[in-house]
């Protein structure tokens, strides 16, 4: 049976580890009741990646990243100028970030458990909440950085 607070801590630690180690990004976790739903609906140009998982419980992660920030992260990650970054680079970087965050979330949560991660995919905004209809739990974290914000959402379909 999953433990919600332990999972949130694991998600936050994973986000910090990935984005500080590989992207040198200063992070400020929002402690307001800032729902991802409200924030993301106001956004124009959000890169959204999704990654399914299954193991002791199953569900998916969704990573919402404003395009401007995604472009900057891709450039930083690849050691290139913003001008030489293509849309494919942006998409692949977003997928890689969700891959790293998901894997590290589970090893932070329980390093004895085996979770299987699917291949990350890019989705459209209207698909974000489609999969939620059958969910048992959804955990959202909003993070402020460099005058911008991004979010990670974990949707649990089956708590195990």
């Amino acid at each position, binding site marked *: 049976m999953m433990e919600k607070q332990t999972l949130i801590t694991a998600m936050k630690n994973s986000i910090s580890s990935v984005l500080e180690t590989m992207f040198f990004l200063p992070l400020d976790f929002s402690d307001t009741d800032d729902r991802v739903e409200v924030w993301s609906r106001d956004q124009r140009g959000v890169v959204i990646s999704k990654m399914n998982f299954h193991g002791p419980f199953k569900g998916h992660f969704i990573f919402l990243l404003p395009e401007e920030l995604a472009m900057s992260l891709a450039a930083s990650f690849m*050691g290139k100028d913003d001008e030489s970054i293509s849309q494919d680079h942006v998409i692949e*970087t977003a997928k890689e970030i969700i891959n*790293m965050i998901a894997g590290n979330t589970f090893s932070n949560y329980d390093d004895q458990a085996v979770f299987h991660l699917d291949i990350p995919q890019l989705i459209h905004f209207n698909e974000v909440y489609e999969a939620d209809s059958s969910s048992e739990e959804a955990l959202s974290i909003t993070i402020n950085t460099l005058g911008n914000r991004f979010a990670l959402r974990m949707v649990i379909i089956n708590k195990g």
Partner: protein
Amino acid sequence: MAYNILIVDDSLPMRSVIKKTIKASGFKVGQIFEASNGEDALNILRDEWLDLVLTDYNMPDMNGLQLMTEMKKDELMKAIPVIMITTEGSQRRVAEFMEEGAEDYIKKPFTPEQIKQKLKCIVGEDDDGEANFDNGNEELDF
């Protein structure tokens, strides 16, 4: 001595980062080859002389473990050390990598220093950059 390395990852940015990290680590590199999937990796392994393979675990069609299994079936490829790169850190998954023949694994996110230490450990290099072939790495004496 410089080492030829194959990086296998379906993500172009991650291949680019690994390549950049290896170069920044100070490890002595000859040629660095890249493959975006297991099939391309096997083709490169058939055509080129490689000293080390760094492969992502989570890839479509053929994952890193399946690639390593294919390599172990081949007389020429089976001696090439494989380092598995993964985001997954479960003890059982790591044990599976090692049981199937990986020399080591690198957990993402990683730092240049971690990459350097892993590579040096695999090829048995001392801090002065000299290969140490007294520790069971004779097959690397190409």
